């Protein structure tokens, strides 16, 4: 409605036409949308990371080759690492933002609460924040162990500097603390994915009677493969290559 008074000066956000972007990021549906996208992209990273790491079973030569080829492309690596960091941070920030909103939405709890979904046991979908937090702890230790350790920032006294990637990895996986945390981390990650993978599609609006049953099944299979795959690295790699 025209009031005759001067219009307020448009801010930077309006000048570049990004009002929609902030509306998206501040809305419940928009936040879950970004949560879903970042989650699925991180699933892509998991698949690639597992595929590469399974070369640990193939022996030192193949694994070192793979690691060297990956690290030779350092320009690409910077882009990939920055991208991954953004995905992780966005996913984690939104976990806190949405969980805080959920907590505030019911201040007084029920004296009794029972599920009405037939046969539902309180499962992965109730523990996404907790399972995510465990996975985050595992990822942080993993970064300290290998990302920083290989650079010579030796926070855990593993002395990995100047070691070949294969030997360094086997050494980390042989460390009892890392081995236990990595195994638990992989299993909890699987639980996180068993809900997260298919739920991301729902958040993106990708629900269809033809495809949703298949997506749900794929989500469970993906979660199982990722959990078993990564846990097998921590469990078997040190046994096989123990010198």
């Amino acid at each position, binding site marked *: 409605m025209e009031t005759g008074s001067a219009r307020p000066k448009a801010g930077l956000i309006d000048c570049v036409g990004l009002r929609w972007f902030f509306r998206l990021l501040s809305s419940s549906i928009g936040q879950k949308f970004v949560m879903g996208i970042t989650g699925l992209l991180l699933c892509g990273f998991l698949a690639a990371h597992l595929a590469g790491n399974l070369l640990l079973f193939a022996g030192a030569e193949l694994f070192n080759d793979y690691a060297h080829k990956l690290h030779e492309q350092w320009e690409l690596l910077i882009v990939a690492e920055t991208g991954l960091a953004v995905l992780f941070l966005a996913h984690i920030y939104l976990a806190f933002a949405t969980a805080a*909103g*959920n907590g505030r*939405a*019911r201040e007084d709890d*029920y004296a009794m609460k029972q*599920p*009405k*979904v037939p046969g*539902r046991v309180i499962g992965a979908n109730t523990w996404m924040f907790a399972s995510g937090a465990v996975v985050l702890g595992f990822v942080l230790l993993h970064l300290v162990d290998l990302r920083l350790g290989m650079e010579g920032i030796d926070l855990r006294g593993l002395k990995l500097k100047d070691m070949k990637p294969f030997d360094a990895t086997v050494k980390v996986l042989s460390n009892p603390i890392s081995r236990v945390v990595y195994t638990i981390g992989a299993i909890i990650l699987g639980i996180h994915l068993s809900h997260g993978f298919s739920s991301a599609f*729902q958040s993106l609006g990708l629900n269809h009677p033809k495809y949703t049953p298949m997506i749900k099944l794929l989500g469970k299979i993906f979660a199982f493969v990722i959990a078993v795959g990564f846990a097998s690295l921590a469990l078997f790699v040190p046994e096989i290559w123990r010198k």
Partner: protein
Amino acid sequence: MNHTSTKALNLTLKIWRQAGPDQPGALKSYTLTDISPDMSFLEMLDVLNEQLIAKGEEPVAFDHDCREGICGTCGVMINGQAHGPDSATTTCQLHMRRFSDGDTILIEPWRARAFPIVRDLVVDRSAFDRIIQSGGYVSVNTGGAPDANAIPVPGHAQQDAMAAAACIGCGACVASCKNASAMLFVSAKVTHLADLPQGQAERSKRVLNMVATMDSEKFGNCTNTGECEAACPAGIKLSNIAQMNREYMKAVLFSCE
């Protein structure tokens, strides 16, 4: 509690009593004898209230209107389940034969920050009204009743729209969701008009405004547990929420609103 009773029931009720919005509340126990299994749940509460009034006590306040499952006015948590143990059933459609002699039944109001308690089992659901209001109106001049074939609507669109329009706005979705999310309700309201040609003119504006109001009313987010769908007496589906997510993202990214 899957069996059905045929003989009269003696029950212990634990009911949330709260004198007013800012008053402290607590569960209070009552015993009821000789309740007919053919009574509805609300009729059982009527019997309790008549006894309370006869004793000079304050009756239990609860919302109800049509008592045939179409108005969406009634609704309480019964033993921790919205509208009680049956699926696709409102509280007024629940019969006492679903309970057994000697049962203890816990009755609580819907609990959500967006649904403040008015008194006992009555909550203020006007947040839903404000969401509906923000959706605006359908600005199609309908004129007289059009010829049945003048506006082509595919069968599946008509069925989806009708299924979504079945939402009675009782609030069981919010009550049963661990995040007190209103997504199922809002998705029903958004999709039943988005499916039909009459709803196209305001399609983008409607979803943007309704979701903005839903967020400002402090409902929680969807974690996709499916409890809302299981508690819904009108059969609204999780696929409605996915459709609303699509509608919302389409409106944010591609509409001029």
